[in-house]
């Protein structure tokens, strides 16, 4: 289990009160170490509930969960965890420096090391100038950055980031992405919940898609998005050749002087390339086709259109 950063077995959470909402339904999840794992799903899918269960902030109705090889109920395991909540709710009457120093003390970091660590983190998140400023005066983006800094104060092995880029402007998103990339380069495992599929596609190695409390799919992003389709581009083909080739490919389109063929099966690619050569055409490229994460996600949750705000997250 040590090669896994997170493991859950039939993890279920039913919130009491009202109709007894089943927020999470028999979740079986395995997250490898040293990866950025993107946890996706529409609102109220159970993403935040999963994070709270893994951090022992709420108790499961049934099932078990381990992080870094230990049961989540063990207080000690949280020495190696970092957490940035969805809407950063921090001590707004503390300055950035005091805020980080407080969490450094919680981890019993000696004073001298704490001072260095705070300095290093303020530099990482670009808030050295604002060190004395109280958090009440921070913008949303600055709060996200100081939030990431507090999540890193203990040099954690596993970091939970709940919607770290949602609601930020493009600049803010880029800054957070850069910080996450730097953190990832240090070999940490990042469990990352987000609605922003573009950013997930840019950053994550593995993904899991959750819908209405159930894990629909999980795996390596490249493998999940890979298709059997191949895109072949060629030039110098006309009339009869195109008519002949059209019958062998899924789709054919013209782009300037080039002809693009979408071939459904890799096995057919050789035949199409042969025909291009036979009709005097010139093959320019052969590229395996990849599905976009958005298309894959929509297919996975069984919707045609993605509306993240249809339901509110519990």
């Amino acid at each position, binding site marked *: 289990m040590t090669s896994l950063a997170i493991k859950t077995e039939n993890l279920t959470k039913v919130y009491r009160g009202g109709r007894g909402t089943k927020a999470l339904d028999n979740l079986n999840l395995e997250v490898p170490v040293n990866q950025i794992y993107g946890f996706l799903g529409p609102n109220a899918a159970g993403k935040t509930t999963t994070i709270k269960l893994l951090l022992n*902030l709420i108790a499961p109705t049934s099932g078990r969960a381990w992080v870094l090889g230990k049961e989540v109920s063990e207080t*000690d395991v*949280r020495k190696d965890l970092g957490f940035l*909540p969805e809407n950063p709710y921090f001590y707004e009457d503390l300055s950035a420096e005091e805020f980080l120093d407080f969490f450094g003390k*919680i981890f019993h970091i000696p004073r001298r090391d704490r001072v260095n660590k705070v300095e290093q983190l303020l530099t990482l998140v670009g808030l050295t100038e604002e060190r004395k400023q109280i958090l009440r005066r921070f913008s949303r983006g600055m709060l996200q950055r100081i939030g990431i800094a507090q999540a890193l104060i203990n040099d954690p092995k596993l970091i939970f980031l709940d919607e770290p880029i949602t609601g930020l402007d493009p600049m803010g998103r880029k800054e957070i992405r850069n910080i996450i990339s730097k953190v990832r380069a240090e070999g940490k495992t990042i469990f990352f919940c987000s609605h922003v599929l573009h950013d997930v596609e840019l950053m994550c190695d593995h993904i899991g898609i959750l819908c209405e409390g159930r894990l629909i799919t999980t795996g390596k992003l490249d493998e999940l998005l890979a298709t059997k389709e191949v895109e072949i581009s060629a030039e110098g083909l006309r009339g009869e050749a195109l008519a002949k080739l059209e019958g062998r490919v899924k789709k054919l389109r013209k782009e300037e002087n080039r002809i693009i063929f979408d071939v459904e099966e890799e096995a057919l690619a050789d035949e199409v390339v042969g025909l291009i050569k036979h009709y005097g055409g010139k093959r320019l490229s052969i590229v395996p086709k990849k599905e976009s994460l958005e298309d894959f996600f929509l297919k996975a949750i069984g919707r045609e259109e993605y509306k993240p705000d249809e339901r509110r997250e519990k």
Partner: protein
Amino acid sequence: MNIWTIGVNSFKRLMRSKILYVMAVFCLITIAYASLYGTLTAGQEGKLMKDVGLAGIAAFSILVAILVGSTVVAKEIESKTIQILLAKPVKKHEFLLGEFLAAALTILMMTAIMGVGFLIIVAIKGIATAALVNGVVLVFFEAILLASIAIFFSTFFSGMVASVFTFIIFVFGHLTYQLPFLVQRAGNVVVKFFGNLLYFALPNLQYFNIRGPVAHNLNVPGSMIFAVIVYGLLYSSIMILASALVFKSKDFA
């Protein structure tokens, strides 16, 4: 260690709240005003000043205790800052004890500011006695007890509801000592049962009130002061233990 860290952090934040200082200044103005008013009551000036002074400190300390006790935990739950803290290697009871420590330090600071101010005023008037210090000390422990009750309520109610319930306990707590007489007179067994239950469950806050004897320069034995302090600490400990039990199974969704 975590208890101290959490306590000091919350105390630091609480002491940045201007309302507490406004209350302390207002209390000192009340005491100073009493000294002026006392000059109109021939021969009673000293008694009036001591009585009004201790009553003022008690009123403001208890207000601080209810205000701080009902918000120190509730605010962390409502603003969800507790989630960040409990996601660290912090046990729920450590958090609770830390917040209680913060409330106690705040009450200590505010009672000390008002108490020292009061003692300076009575010393200037030449009527300071050691018994006045005992009076202020008991006010502090009564406030601590009420803060623990407010924290208990805030573990399952909002800050506002917790403060209202604590105030109700404060009012009834000062009437508890009359319950045995009322129970004796009651003929109904059910009334007697509930009367006795309330007598043992509610804190007897009159124990902490020694304003009368202090104002009249009557001796209050040290052993009695000590017993009342132990009573206050025991009651507070039970309330914090009960809060920890509620907290143990609480979800922070």
